[in-house]
């Protein structure tokens, strides 16, 4: 398989702090998951790959060409950043159209491309609303829309599922898989194994600025299952949801924080499937946000580093 991203002895230093340390990796075409706990260096790697940062040492090439100082590369690259940053006063359509225009599209072509992209992420109905009035999930989706509007061959998605509710999470995962099937190459980061696993079996494991492992996700699956998975659910009625969840064998423990139910589960796949069903049925109240602290992943990384 040809590599779409090649890094050789790539390092990045922020003053005295190392963000990425001597990484040599070739990311193949197709979908690749970049997995690691917060602070592992995923975002630094993505910023280097998208030409926002210049390597301190080493090289990074995208589709065979350097990216830093080479704006033509962005014709074939779409980037969805992690940060929740927008021109809040613009509508979703205005924003995506304006960014598509920067790819050289005429006003009509940019408008059409933006509408298609918004439709793809199920946001066309809200296209004329100001981004400032969007929910967190809608903001995440409009970020995806601006990344795909110019039809790039390579998509770099930094934590694209962050803050999405279970249904949108599942839809977005399906969408990313479909893009992969349509021939796009995608590098997607997450600190949640089962999210990456749902999209691809090809992963890069990062820890402390290094690539710890690369290859098939199932090789570390057994390790991760030994550690209970923590899920934090923001919901309108936490106690009602807790009552529903307690009947489930997939929940090993449960505690409350203000407006939030924090669940530990030994079987995250089964639990998320159940949670999606609950969200769709409305039982247990409206689920606003699902997040997963990376405690369990950190434990696996600690184990991998020791061995």
């Amino acid at each position, binding site marked *: 398989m040809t590599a779409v991203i090649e890094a050789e002895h790539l390092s990045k230093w922020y003053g005295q702090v190392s963000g990425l340390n001597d990484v040599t990796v070739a990311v193949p075409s197709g979908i690749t998951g970049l997995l690691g706990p917060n602070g592992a260096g995923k975002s630094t790697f993505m910023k280097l790959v998208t030409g926002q940062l210049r390597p301190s040492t080493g090289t990074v090439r995208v589709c065979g060409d350097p990216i830093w100082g080479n704006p033509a590369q962005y014709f074939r690259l779409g980037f969805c950043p992690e940060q929740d940053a927008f021109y809040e006063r613009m509508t979703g359509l205005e924003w995506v159209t304006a960014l598509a*225009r920067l790819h050289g599209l005429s006003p009509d072509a940019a408008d059409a491309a933006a509408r298609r992209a918004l439709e793809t992420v199920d946001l066309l109905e809200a296209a004329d609303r100001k981004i400032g009035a969007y929910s967190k999930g809608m903001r995440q989706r409009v970020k995806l829309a601006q990344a795909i509007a110019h039809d790039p061959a390579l998509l770099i998605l930094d934590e694209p599922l962050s803050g999405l509710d279970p249904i949108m999470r599942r839809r977005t995962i399906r969408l990313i898989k479909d893009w992969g099937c349509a021939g796009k190459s995608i590098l997607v980061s997450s600190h949640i194994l089962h999210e990456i696993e749902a999209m691809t079996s090809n992963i890069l494991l990062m820890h402390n600025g290094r690539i710890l492992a690369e290859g098939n996700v199932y090789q570390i699956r057994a390790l991760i299952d030994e550690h209970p998975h923590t899920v934090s659910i923001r919901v309108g009625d936490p106690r009602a949801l807790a009552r529903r969840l307690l009947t489930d064998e997939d929940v090993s423990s449960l505690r409350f924080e203000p407006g939030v139910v924090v669940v530990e589960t030994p079987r995250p796949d089964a639990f998320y499937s159940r949670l999606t069903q609950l969200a769709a049925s409305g039982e247990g109240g409206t689920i606003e946000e699902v997040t997963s602290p990376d405690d369990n992943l950190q434990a696996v990384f600690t184990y991998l580093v020791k061995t």
Partner: protein
Amino acid sequence: MSSGQPAAGSGQQPAAGSGQSFVRSTMRIFDLSLGEMLWARRTIFMALIVAAPVFLAVVSRIVSANGTAVLRINGERVGGGGIFGVMIWILYLKFIIPALGVFYGTSLIADEVEDKTITYLFTRPIPRRSIVMGKYLAYVACAASVVLPSVMIVFMLMVPFGEIGRSFGPLLGDLGIIAIGLAVYGAVFLLAGVMLKRPLVAGLVFAFGWEPIALLLPGYLKHFTIAYYLQALMPQAMPADDTLSLLQAVVRDVPSATVSLLWLLFALVIALILAMRAVESREYILEQ
């Protein structure tokens, strides 16, 4: 989500090698930035600042209608045209234009970095220098569209109706000087915004500390101000009735209009080139 197919399918992926042309990219950034800028909170602040001279002109008009002299210099009553000239120099050129230059110029790139929206611009197939130029041109257009109408309203209120035709030429000159002032201050403070960590403080010190002091001092220091060259472009000599102005008159060393224009153009071009080079080569570390 409706479809798994890629969104656009327009396939606009030319061979790698170069992005879009500088001029074309600049105009697109200009389009994007102008709309944002016109409706920004900062523009409301700018409108309030330029409303102050209009308010003063209305008050002056009401006072003069009662036969009272609004301004006397050396015991002589100053007419509406003279007061207009004073307002152009003291209110606009010495306060409003530098203030707008500081608040807008320093924030043109810094705001995008602080809001973390710069990522969306830096990951497009356009040269980074076009982002600087497009935003700068949007600032000039936005500031001029707010300030110049204010000057014209003040002119209409201050200059007697019978003198409007005769004063129209000097008015055009004043508008031109103000536009030049907006452009040069904006470029200089844009450079400060991309080079310095605290550009607003540095800009305020330059505009309201360094410039007034340097203009008072004999010698060459005043050559390192923008106000010195703008002052030389003023079509009419400023009336002087206080010690400060008399002191300024003593040390006055006025270059010709052509020399002033060339220096202002030089400052503008150099500031823009340095700002564009800085943004081209700089990494912006955005905290998550």
